[in-house]
C-alpha cells in the first residue's frame, strides 16, 4: 500500500516539475514555438526521462558491499545489466562498421542501411551458430560427463565455494554448467532448426500443391489445417507428447524424435497457410500460364516457378517460425516433456537450476546460472526477431 502511495506521489511530483519545466522554458525562450505548443504529456515525458536517468546513475554508483560486508545483489545485477547493454551496443556498432568496409559491394551497401538492432541480431546469430557447430571443440568437458565435485558455486573463487576448473560451477550431480550451456546451443538450437526445416518442407510443399491443384485437395487440406489451428499449439503438443511418451518405449524410438515430428506437424499448419496464400497470388501470373502451356510438369511449376518467387516472404516467416518452434521446445523441455536428460538443453537447465534464484541475496553469482540459460534462449529469439523485423520493414518499403 505504501509502495503504491510512493509511486503516485513521485508521479505527481514529476507532473508538477513538468509543468514548471514547460513554464520556465516558455519564459526563458520568450514563448518560442517549441515550448509554446508543447503538450503537458511531452513535458512529462522529458522530465520523467531525466529523473529516470538520474536515478539510474545514482543507483549504478552505489557501493557494492554494505557495512556488514554483504554484497548488495540488486546493485550488482544492475551494474551487470548496464555493462551488458553497453558492451552489446559497442559490439553491434563495431560489427556494423566492420561490415561497412569489409566484404562485397552488396554486403557493404546492406550494412550501411542497417539499423543497430539488426546488426546486433546478425552478430548474435553468428556467435550462436559458431557455438552450436563447434560445441564439442569449445566446451571444456562433455555434456553428460559427471565430474568430481557437485554443486560447485559459480565464480571460480575457492573462498566463495567455487573452483577455477569450473568457471560457472557444476550442477547437483556434478556436470560442468559452462559445458552444458555450450552444448545446449548445439542441442536446443540444432533441434529447433531441424524442426523448423521439417515444418517448412511439409507446409510449403502442401501449401504450394493446394494452391496449384486447387479443387478438393485444397479444400481437404485447408479445412484440416483450420481444425488443427483451432487447438492452441502448446496444448496440442503436450497432448501428443503424452501419447508419444506411451508409444516411444514400445517402438524403441527416443522421445526427442517424436517431439521433432509433432512440433513440425503442428507448426507446418501455420506455414501451410502462408505458403498457400503466397502461391495463390503467384499461380495467376502469366508466366505460370506460359509454363503450363509449354507442358511443364507439376514439379517444375512448384519448384522452378513458384518457389523462387515466394522466397522473400517465406524467408521472413522462417525466422519467425524458428522463434516459435524454439520457444515451444524450450517450454516443453522446461515442463519436463521435451528434450530428454542425457542431452543438455536450456529449458531443462532453467528448470533444474531455478531454485538457486532464492540465494540471490547472499550469492548473486549463483542466482545467475538459471537466468543464463533462460537468457540464452531469450537472446537468440530477440536477435532473430530484430533481424526479421528489419527484413520485413525493408521489403515492405515502409518509410514512416
Amino acid at each position, binding site marked *: 500500500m505504501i509502495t503504491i502511495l510512493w509511486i503516485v506521489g513521485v508521479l505527481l511530483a514529476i507532473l508538477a516539475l513538468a509543468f514548471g519545466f514547460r513554464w520556465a522554458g516558455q519564459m526563458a525562450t520568450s514563448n518560442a514555438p517549441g515550448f509554446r505548443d508543447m503538450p503537458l504529456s511531452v513535458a512529462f515525458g522529458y522530465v520523467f526521462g531525466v529523473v529516470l536517468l538520474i536515478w539510474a546513475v545514482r543507483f549504478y554508483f552505489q557501493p557494492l558491499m554494505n557495512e556488514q560486508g554483504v554484497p548488495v545483489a540488486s546493485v550488482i545485477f544492475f551494474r551487470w545489466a548496464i555493462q551488458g547493454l553497453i558492451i552489446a551496443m559497442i559490439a553491434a556498432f563495431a560489427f556494423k562498421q566492420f561490415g561497412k568496409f569489409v566484404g562485397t559491394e552488396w554486403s557493404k551497401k546492406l550494412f550501411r542501411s542497417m539499423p543497430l538492432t539488426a546488426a546486433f541480431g546478425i552478430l548474435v546469430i553468428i556467435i550462436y551458430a559458431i557455438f552450436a557447430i563447434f560445441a564439442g571443440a569449445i566446451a571444456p568437458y562433455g555434456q553428460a560427463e559427471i565430474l568430481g565435485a557437485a554443486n560447485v558455486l559459480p565464480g571460480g573463487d575457492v573462498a566463495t565455494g567455487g573452483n577455477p576448473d569450473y568457471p560457472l560451477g557444476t550442477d547437483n550431480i556434478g556436470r560442468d554448467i559452462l559445458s552444458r550451456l555450450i552444448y545446449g546451443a548445439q542441442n536446443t538450437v540444432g533441434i529447433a532448426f531441424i524442426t523448423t526445416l521439417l515444418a517448412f518442407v511439409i507446409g510449403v510443399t502442401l501449401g504450394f500443391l493446394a494452391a496449384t491443384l486447387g479443387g478438393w485437395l485444397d479444400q481437404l487440406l485447408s479445412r484440416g489445417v483450420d481444425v488443427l489451428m483451432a487447438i492452441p499449439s502448446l496444448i496440442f503438443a*503436450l497432448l501428443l507428447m503424452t501419447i508419444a511418451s506411451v508409444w516411444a518405449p514400445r517402438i524403441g524410438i527416443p522421445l526427442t524424435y517424436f517431439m521433432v515430428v509433432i512440433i513440425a506437424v503442428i507448426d507446418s499448419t501455420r506455414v501451410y497457410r502462408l505458403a498457400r496464400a503466397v502461391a495463390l497470388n503467384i499461380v495467376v501470373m502469366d508466366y505460370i500460364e506460359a509454363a503450363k502451356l509449354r507442358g511443364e510438369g507439376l514439379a517444375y511449376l512448384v519448384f522452378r516457378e513458384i518457389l523462387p518467387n515466394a522466397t522473400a516472404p517465406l524467408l521472413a516467416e522462417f525466422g519467425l517460425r524458428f522463434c516459435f518452434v524454439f520457444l515451444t521446445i524450450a517450454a516443453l523441455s522446461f515442463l519436463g516433456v521435451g528434450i530428454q536428460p542425457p542431452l543438455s538443453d536450456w529449458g531443462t537447465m532453467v528448470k533444474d537450476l531455478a531454485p538457486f534464484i532464492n540465494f540471490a541475496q547472499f550469492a548473486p553469482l549463483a542466482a545467475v546460472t538459471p537466468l543464463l540459460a533462460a537468457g540464452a534462449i531469450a537472446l537468440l529469439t530477440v536477435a532473430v526477431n530484430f533481424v526479421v523485423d528489419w527484413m520485413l520493414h525493408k521489403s515492405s518499403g515502409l518509410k514512416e
Partner: protein
Amino acid sequence: MGNVLTIVVQRLLLGLLTLLVVSIVIFLAVNALPGDFAEAILGQGATPDAIATIRRDLGLDQPLVVRYFSWLSGILRGDLGISFAQLNFRTNLGGAGDVGVIDQIAPRLSNTLFLALVTAMIAVPIAVALGVLAALFRNSVFDRVANITTLSSISSPEFFMAYVLILFLAVLNPILPSLSNIYDGMPFAERIEKSLLPALTLTLVVTAHMMRMTRAAIINLLASPYIEMARLKGMSPMRVIVKHALPNALAPIINVIALNLAYLITGVVVVEVVFVYPGIGQLFVDSVKIRDIPVVQACCLIFAAAYILLNLTADILSILSNPRLRHPK
C-alpha cells in the same frame, strides 16, 4: 440489424462445428494409443482377466463410434470420466466414491479464470494507453524504446520473464510472494496479492503484443482524409487520436485483445508451473507427466473450447464494431 444477426449466428454455428471436429481429433489422437486404457491403468503385469474387467467397466469393448458418442454425451452432461490416478487407487487399494475429472478440474479452472481476469484488468488498459502514446509520439525516443522493449518481451520465453520478476520483486526486494498457494476461502486481498506476480508475468508477455498492434492500427488510420481534416481544424494531436483515430481503430484493437487473451491460455501453462499456481495449466502438465489420459483429454478440450470461444468473440465483436455492417445501406 437482420444482416448482422445472420452473420453472428453463422459464426456461432461455425464455432460449434469447429469445436465438434476438434473433439473428434482429440478423441482419435488419444485412441490411437497402442493397447488401451485398461492396460495403461494396470501396467505390464496385468492378468487378462483384470484387463477384461476394466475394459467392460469402462466400456472399452464397444466400437469406436459408440465410445465417441458416449464420451461426447458424457461431456454434455458434465461427466468427463474418472482419472487414471483415481482408478488406479480404487483397483489397488479399494475405496468408495470416485472423484470425477470434472470435480478435479472445476476449482482449478476457476483459479485460472481468476488469474486471467486479473491479468486482463492490468494488461488491457496499459496496452491500449501505451499503444496510443507510441502512435502519438511515433519515431520519437519513447517509441523506439517501446519498440525494442516490446519486441524483446514478445520474444523471451515466459519462464525467463517469470524468473526475472521473481528475482527482482520477490527475492531481492521482497514485495510480492513468489509462490502462489491459493486455497478456497482465502481473503480476497490476499488472493490478489498471491496471484499478482504470475499476473504481472503474463501481463508483460501479452501487453507487448497488444501494444504493438494498437500502435499499428492507429498509425494505419493516420493517413485517412478525416484525420487530415481534424488536424487542419487545429485539433491537438492527442484529441485527433483519441476522438477520431481510436474509435475507427476499435475493431482491430478488440480483435487483438481477444486474440491475446486466447494466447494467455498457452502462456498460463508455463507461468502456473513456475509459480506453483493451482490452476488448470498445472493440473494439465502434471497429468501429462503421469500420462493420466482422461484428465489430459478433458483439459485439452477445455483449452481448445476457450481458444475457439475467444477467437469467436473477437470475430463477432469486430463485426459488431463495424458501422458499415451494423447499418447496411
